[in-house]
């Protein structure tokens, strides 16, 4: 029974493999082709440097002539990180009022209308908890724990919402930031309170000084 299946697999491997590859829609690997005369399986193709594909060994100043220079456009297309000093923050802006609407539509399902989180969904509480970090019941939230506002922008932009990761525009993330940080009492909670690259970089979070370098080994010696 299994022998029979094997025969079919072999035939498909040799015939269908190359045919599918030509269509360019292959989403699984074909079995390796068999060599003439001996019937051995062919080894994988020798990897081709992308530098060779473009005709020259580029860049010539590297030892291997492998890979290519990355263009500014190629980098810009995926360079989404934001740093505490504001480097990487995109153009755009959003208000508390816009953020409130967006939050209710996009964020509240998981994080709760009151931003207190929904534990059954694994969605954490976003605000509150100030003053609890040294207690027996520390509540770690954006408000009480996160040291930089940039982190909130960066993470929300790259990975939220979970059901449609990375779908929010820069304006939307500024607006949601204005609403969440406003609700946290970190930035203003007037409807017109606006966040953009400049104002975002100036925010000082409540727990900005709460982190220390790793002192380990702290025991065991």
């Amino acid at each position: 029974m299994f022998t029979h299946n094997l025969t079919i697999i072999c035939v498909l491997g040799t015939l269908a493999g190359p045919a599918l590859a030509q269509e360019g829609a292959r989403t699984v690997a074909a079995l390796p082709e068999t060599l003439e005369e001996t019937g051995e399986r062919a080894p994988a193709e020798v990897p081709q440097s992308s530098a060779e594909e473009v005709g020259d060994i580029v860049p010539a100043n590297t030892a291997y002539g492998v890979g290519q220079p990355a263009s500014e456009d190629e980098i810009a297309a995926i360079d989404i990180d934001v740093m505490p000093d504001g480097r990487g923050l995109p153009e755009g802006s959003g208000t508390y009022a816009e953020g409130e609407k967006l939050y209710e539509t996009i964020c509240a399902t998981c994080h709760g209308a009151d931003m207190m989180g929904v534990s059954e969904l694994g969605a954490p509480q976003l605000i509150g908890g100030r003053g609890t970090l040294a207690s027996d019941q520390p509540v770690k939230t954006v408000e009480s724990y996160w040291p930089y506002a940039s982190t909130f922008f960066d993470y929300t932009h790259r990975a939220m919402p979970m059901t449609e990761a990375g779908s929010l525009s820069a304006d939307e993330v500024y607006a949601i930031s204005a609403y969440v940080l406003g609700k946290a009492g970190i930035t203003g909670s007037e409807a017109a309170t606006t966040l953009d690259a400049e104002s975002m970089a100036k925010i000082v979070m409540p727990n900005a000084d709460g982190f220390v370098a790793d002192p380990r080994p702290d025991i065991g010696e």
Partner: protein
Amino acid sequence: MRKTATAKWGMFNGLTRRSLLMGGVVLGGSALAGGRARAEAPPGAIEYDVQTDPTKEQGRLILDDGGYGSRSQFENEVRWRYPTASPDSSWSMTPLASGQGIMTPSGLHFERHHGGIPTIDPRTHELILHGMVNQPMRFTMDDLKRLPAVSKIHFIECSGNGLTEWAKPTLKTVQGTHGLTSTSEWTGVRLSTLLEMAGVQDTAAWILAEGADAAVMTRSVPIDKAMDDAIVAYAQNGEALRPEQGYPLRLLLPGYEGNTHIKWLRRLDVSDKPFMTREETSKYSDLMPDGTARQFTLEMDAKSVITFPSGAMKLPRAGFYEVTGIAWSGRGKIAKVDVSADGGATWHEAALDGPVLPKCHTRFRLPWTWTGEEAVLQSRTVDETGYVQPTLEQLIEVRGLKSVYHLNAIQSWHIAPDGEVTNVHA
């Protein structure tokens, strides 16, 4: 179980090690063969008819399984998913109790995902290296495979390994208490090779590593680590990475906490400062009793655990058992492992299977005769830096109960007179 010192315990004898116990370990597997009903074969296995007498008829034909191979239908070890609320951001644990030697089968390597397991076509996947470099570079998977490579055997341990065990014994098995560590051979390009090609500028101090999963997972890595022993890995245990381990490309930072080994690696951004991503601020930072949090707690301190006997097993009777387990350190080689059967009152040095590799699981073994009376088994390792694996009390005294990560305390397994093995704080 705090005071078991008065209990009698077994003796460590000089018997040569023989694997009398292995039959016991595998017993679980025979459960599925118990019923004659045609159960579905365990994951990774194919069910074949069991021959009445395999010496009297030909066995199945070569390549019957298609040419990749499969494990015996009588073997059933699987990873176990910790019941997090969200299945997208979750983890699964290696069944250490049945593990042999130091290598983890690729299919049993623990997993931690923050946005599920992406399916990525290696023909279109690229790695971009940019930031504070003289020449930003773009590499295809083929490019990376053309470069000089290294193969190294290293453990990866999640810094959350054991997080359920701070306040009280919670999970019952060694898979639950310690299963977020695994060892593989990893092959790829040294990160220093790529950085030298791009030309790192003098101001560079950190590198952001970014994955191509739905979490677009990011961590900042010190440039010194990147230039030291970091690997941009495309292979695991002799074949391409498993998808859940980052196919087609992952970062490997030997000895560092697992979440920094960014999987599905797509971008490296060289900078002068750390990026302060979510995973190095709100998560994977260690809250201390005074309310401050330790950040960039990157190296995994030395740790060991006895995997046999271990929690939820039952020793069938008094007699000889080989006590065995694994030890590892993110700071180098394991120098020594001691084993106690009396809750730490007396210690006996275990034998280490060689070669002992740096930042790698190390298998230890010690013959033991259990007298049938109450005992508490513990292991305690020392690494080549002289660091001694602490007790839980020592850890809690310094770090309190709210730091979540980096629990590397001595583990205690209580052996009851009836042979039941349970997870205890002793």
